[in-house]
């Protein structure tokens, strides 16, 4: 019997194990003095996450939830000497407490049947603050780059999907909930579509590798939300039982696949940071030659997370696609609309994710190194990539594993589709191998591979500065989506004599829209309101005595009147 608890506990245990092995080498040099603090928070985080999954009752759940937030905030703050880390920790703590607050309100309202909508709304806010629903995702792109890589791996792979766990646990998806299924479905569907498309769109221009991965987490949570939303909607429209089970299975399978793939990617990003000291993709490059294991594992996992066959990321998305297409065919206009929405958003998301990951692979690992650090990088200690191999093997096992989970959940509905998908994937891999063999052994000169200079319009000896940077790679798409991204550009034009101009420069920065465009104005407005209250606290003793006097008089009058 595979229960919901098991599904969400597996990523916690596996990703935490890999992250622990990775962390033993990741924390090096000066930082090793604070090793004790790191392990305390690490163990507390993992323990509280397991508690969230396994405790019974609302109050223990809330306590475990709050403990999880606080313990992981300790991990985020590990390198707290840097200003950006301090800022990120603040934002993360704020998000955790706001989430806990919303969940308490939801818990109070939960038991009253007439307040279902209010309870659900607060739960979406509370759990969404963890799962990164837009616009509550603002902490993700701040906290993930600030936290040490093993902590980011756990948070992104295992912790943020717990938001979905909480949501399904308290608002279970079953045939009985058809009354409110429409609200549940449309809410998650809308949040999922915005999250998936917005997340991956903001991932595109990021030059910081971990920030890119963090935005990609927002995207993947959006994909899961789309699956669950479709599931609830099919229930609400009295669709076939197998159909909504299929959508749910797709979402659940994607939780696992995302955990293993993203966990490994964050660990690889950590290895890159440890060996080069930077995460800026425009300053990296050529690392596949210097760090062959880390680079190869990163490439495999990135292809998986871009949702391309034959790897596991594709199978979960395929389940959501199949449900969407069957919903289109069902004849119910509402379901057909939802199906089209999901299929088209998923297609666009997938294509954008492929671009973002091509950029991550290309910018970080391919071509020539663009800085001293990248050129002089060396491979990591063995245990760092062994941790990644562990997660990658789990990902590969998830190719048949996803098919089995879908079979298990739906009881064999449309399973042949997923089995053939896996077989065609294997056929694809076999074709690659046979073409490589053909090229090597059958072609007369196939194994001769002379090294030649790159073609740059006839100029030999190109420098790494002439190659395309990661930012340049995505520039056409980010330019197209400028109205949404609102990137800031700092241009330093040519100066001096046109024949021998000075260096020109351009720098672009894309901040999160939700943080800069929504939360910062909201919070600064709140701060301004509370500034007025400062009048009462101006430090003058006379004013305080006056206030106490007025309060006592008012109480006296009130007592006399009653």
């Amino acid at each position, binding site marked *: 019997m595979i229960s919901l608890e098991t599904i969400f506990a597996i990523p916690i245990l596996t990703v935490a194990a890999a992250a622990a092995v990775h962390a033993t080498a990741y924390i090096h040099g000066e930082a090793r003095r604070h090793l004790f603090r790191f392990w305390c928070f690490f163990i507390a985080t993992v323990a509280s996450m397991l508690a969230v999954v396994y405790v019974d009752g609302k109050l223990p759940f809330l306590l475990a939830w709050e403990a999880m937030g606080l313990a992981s905030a300790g991990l985020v703050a590990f390198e707290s000497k840097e200003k950006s880390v301090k800022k990120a920790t603040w934002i993360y703590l704020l998000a955790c407490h706001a989430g806990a607050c919303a969940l308490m309100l939801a818990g109070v309202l939960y038991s009253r049947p007439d307040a279902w909508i209010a309870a659900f709304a607060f739960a979406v806010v509370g759990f969404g603050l963890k799962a990164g629903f837009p616009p509550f995702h603002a902490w993700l792109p701040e906290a993930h780059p600030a936290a040490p890589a093993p902590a980011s791996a756990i948070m992104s792979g295992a912790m943020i999907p717990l938001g979905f766990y909480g949501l399904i646990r308290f608002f279970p998806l079953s045939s009985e909930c058809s009354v409110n299924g429409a609200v549940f479905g449309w809410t998650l569907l809308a949040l999922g579509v915005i999250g998936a498309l917005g997340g991956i769109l903001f991932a595109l221009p990021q030059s910081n590798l971990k920030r890119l991965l963090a935005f990609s987490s927002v995207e993947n949570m959006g994909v899961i939300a789309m699956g669950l939303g479709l599931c609830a909607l099919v229930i609400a429209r009295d669709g076939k039982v197998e159909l909504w089970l299929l959508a749910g299975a797709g979402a659940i399978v994607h939780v696992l696949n995302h955990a293993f793939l993203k966990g490994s990617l964050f660990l690889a990003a950590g290895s890159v940071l440890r060996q080069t000291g930077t995460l800026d993709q425009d300053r990296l490059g050529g690392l596949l030659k210097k760090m062959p294991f880390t680079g190869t594992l990163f490439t495999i996992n990135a292809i998986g997370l871009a949702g391309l066959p034959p790897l596991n990321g594709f199978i979960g998305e395929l389940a959501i696609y199949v449900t969407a297409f069957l919903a289109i065919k069902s004849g119910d*206009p509402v379901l057909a609309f939802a199906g089209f929405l999901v299929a088209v958003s998923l297609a666009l998301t997938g294509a954008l994710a492929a671009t973002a990951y091509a950029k991550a692979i290309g910018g970080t690992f*391919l071509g020539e190194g663009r800085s001293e650090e990248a050129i002089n990088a060396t491979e990591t200690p063995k245990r760092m990539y062994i941790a990644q191999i562990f997660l990658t093997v789990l990902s590969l096992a998830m190719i048949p594993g996803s098919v089995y989970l879908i079979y298990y959940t739906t009881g064999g509905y449309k399973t042949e589709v997923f089995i053939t998908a896996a077989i065609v994937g294997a056929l694809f891999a076999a074709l*690659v191998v046979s073409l490589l063999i053909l090229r090597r052994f059958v072609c007369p000169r196939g194994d001769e*591979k002379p090294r030649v200079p790159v073609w740059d319009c006839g100029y030999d000896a190109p420098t790494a500065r002439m190659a*395309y940077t990661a930012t340049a790679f995505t520039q*056409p798409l980010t330019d197209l989506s400028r109205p949404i991204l609102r990137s800031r550009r700092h241009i330093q034009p040519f100066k001096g004599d046109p024949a021998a101009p000075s260096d020109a420069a351009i720098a672009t920065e894309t901040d999160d829209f939700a943080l800069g465009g929504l939360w910062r104005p909201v919070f600064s407005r709140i701060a301004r309101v509370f500034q007025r209250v400062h009048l009462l606290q101006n430090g003058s003793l006379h004013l305080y005595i006056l206030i106490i006097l007025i309060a006592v008089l008012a109480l006296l009058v009130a007592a006399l009147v009653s």
Partner: protein
Amino acid sequence: MNILSVILAVILAPLFLGIVNQTKAFFGGRRGPGYLRLYKDLFKLVRKSCPRPMPSTWIFDIAQSVSLASVIAASIVFPWSGVGIGSSIVPAVLFFYILAAGRFFTVIGALDAGNAFEGMGASREMQFSTLAEPIVFVILGLLVMLNGDVSLTSVLAGVSSETWRESIVALILVFGAFYAVFLLENCRVPFDDPETHLELTMIHEAMLLDVGGVDLAFALYGAALKFELLAAFLVTMFVPQLSNPYLHLSVIFGGVALISILTGVVESIMARVRFFKTPQMLLGALLMASLAVFFIACF
């Protein structure tokens, strides 16, 4: 019969690009390179060695093989003669995702060469294919709505005469939208020009600048097979399934030859558009596809 038709498709693929080139030569008043030019080129290339650019790694080495493997895998599951190998269960989504996986490898292979032009080509390729993806999936949704199931055979079950009568406008719109995707995916005018010789204006060809020998043969052959495959997809969308597989196969190949001639004509009478106009053209194709869905759903 199924295996036979796949083998036939694999053998015939370079011929159709020959048809395109001969059509263009006819319009240009030239004699043209001949229908079998690509076969001769491929034969010449497989006897050469594969030069590798200095910065490249194993990704560059396998990129063209993966890209060709993806197209071959997609052709194996394609229902050439009405029923294909497993195509009655293979989901249509998988068909397009396998092609996308091949393209992904071409792109990272190009980035691996570490040169400005290949990076530029890779960047443009990703931009345009990203914009084409929603069009494909709107059309797939429409086909599922018309024909009933997610598998490749049922998506391509063909349009019944009844649908032809009722919603001819929608079908023309679908043809236009998919034809735009077809031209884009195969790097044809007006989106890309396979014959351009200036690196700055290349898209797909720019990614192959440093590819040579057997790898170049793989890339050229893969492009030819993809051309044939997507043209066959376009034809099968509209041709009702015939009971005789031989007849079906010959109708499909006849249709692909017609599409090749049409492409030759389009290339002869049209100039390629500027890069900045391409997104607008793709948006137009997306609107056409969505309008077709609207027509079929509402009338």
